[in-house]
């Protein structure tokens, strides 16, 4: 009698508990994708591929299996969501346009953090969209060509001083000119311009800084400052000097595709404080590098993450390591 009671008790406790756990698990499974975030070395996003129909809700349960991660969709206004280790965060997404979207990790989770990306395929009737190639393609710029400025300013140019020349610079202030010319080219053009012959070399550098200044805005620079801190500073350094915490760890090898690079030296991140390098790069070239990535260096491809506007903001921010702005 007692023995039977004991058996029933054990069965109720253990089997009941088991059923309850199974039921709870099953509840969590129904129709909802659980997206696991792991450091790229141990798997990255699992799964790294999602499919949903346009205008249909995509319910996600986000969780991290190791450290803090974040979730965001490239080129979207959807605010980034933090993913905490062992905690489930629920999120519902809806896409009205068919196409391919990239989701990426927004919190640095190690040296390979930027490799942590996945894609969402949104199916449906798509409207034919005209895709404009990036500027560097349009103007036929070889962004991998080595460049080194011959002329550099003797001190940090000031956009404020350059403002004095504003009436003489109108031809150089257009966005087309600014984007397709490196500051050095602009300076050489100004130097060659006979109407500006009266100005000293440094005054013309101030003018170049002013051209930069008029092609950006305070809002753009402050947005870019934030983007830079979140996405770039870990390698390029908070000060832009290429001395970020991961600067000496970016090994240009991961996966078979990059095997050709194995055995190569570590490519150090670009030092934006080096005038020889940055003043000889045009905004189009910098934007090209930014959206395409470094091809074998540790530089990620940001084209699917940042909007075009954001890339131009970031480019203008990079020059702020060379120029003093108007305050």
């Amino acid at each position: 009698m007692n023995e039977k009671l004991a058996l029933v008790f054990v069965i109720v406790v253990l089997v009941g508990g088991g059923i309850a756990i199974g039921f709870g698990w099953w509840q969590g499974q129904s129709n909802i994708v659980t997206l696991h975030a792991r450091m790229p070395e141990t798997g990255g996003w699992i799964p790294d591929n999602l499919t949903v129909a346009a205008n249909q809700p995509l319910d996600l349960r986000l969780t991290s299996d190791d450290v803090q991660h974040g979730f965001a969709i490239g080129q979207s206004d959807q605010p980034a969501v933090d993913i905490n280790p062992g905690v489930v965060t629920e999120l519902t997404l809806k896409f009205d346009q068919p196409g391919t979207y990239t989701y990426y990790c927004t919190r640095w989770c190690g040296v390979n953090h930027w490799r942590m990306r996945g894609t969402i395929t949104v199916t449906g009737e798509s409207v034919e969209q005209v895709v404009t190639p990036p500027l560097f393609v349009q103007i036929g710029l070889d962004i991998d060509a080595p460049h080194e400025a011959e002329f550099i300013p003797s001190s940090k140019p000031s956009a404020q001083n350059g403002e004095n020349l504003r009436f003489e610079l109108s031809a150089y202030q257009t966005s087309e000119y600014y984007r397709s010319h490196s500051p050095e080219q602009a300076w050489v053009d100004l130097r060659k311009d006979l109407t500006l012959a009266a100005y000293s070399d440094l005054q013309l550098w101030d003018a170049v800084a002013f051209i930069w200044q008029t092609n950006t805005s305070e809002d753009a620079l402050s947005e870019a400052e934030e983007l830079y801190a979140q996405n770039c500073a870990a390698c390029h350094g908070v000060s832009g000097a290429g001395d970020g915490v991961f600067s000496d760890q970016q090994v240009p090898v991961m996966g078979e595709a990059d095997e050709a690079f194995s055995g190569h030296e570590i490519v150090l991140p670009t030092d934006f404080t080096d005038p020889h390098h940055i003043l000889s790069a045009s905004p189009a070239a910098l934007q090209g590098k930014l959206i395409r990535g470094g091809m074998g260096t540790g530089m990620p491809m940001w084209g699917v993450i940042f909007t075009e506007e954001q890339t131009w903001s970031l480019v203008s921010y990079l020059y702020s390591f060379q120029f003093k702005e108007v305050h």
Partner: protein
Amino acid sequence: MKHPAVSWLILGAAVLLVVFVPILHKPEILNKERSFRVEAGDFAYTPAVLKVNPGDRVTIELISTDVVHGLYVDGYDLSVTADPGQPATLTFVADQSGVFRLRCSVACGALHPFMLGKLQVGRNMLIWQGIGMTFLALIGTLLIRKPFPVPEKQTSS
């Protein structure tokens, strides 16, 4: 010693001294600015031990070198979080003396619960009290002439 009671009295007085003198000790307050650049990575803080004086204004710049880490200061109940590439600072006045553990406050991997450091404000009185008491305990245990009487074993009744 002829009179054990005298020795015990002296020992008792010594214990009181060791316990209370550090409490009565009031350190000089200099209100200095102290700043530290603390790197957090691989489940450790570098430097792991920060020493300041009571009343100092302490600024800790936390620099994560692998994943997101935090720094929580025991006793002060303050914390700060830093991503790699985004150093964060924590500023406070060290108005409590003692040794406080620094603990990582963001799960940063398997060894996260053991990612620890120390903030020492002023002298570490507790450890000196502890050492002092241990030596007094040594004297005490040697003073006992007969280590506490062994009760007669009742083998059978």
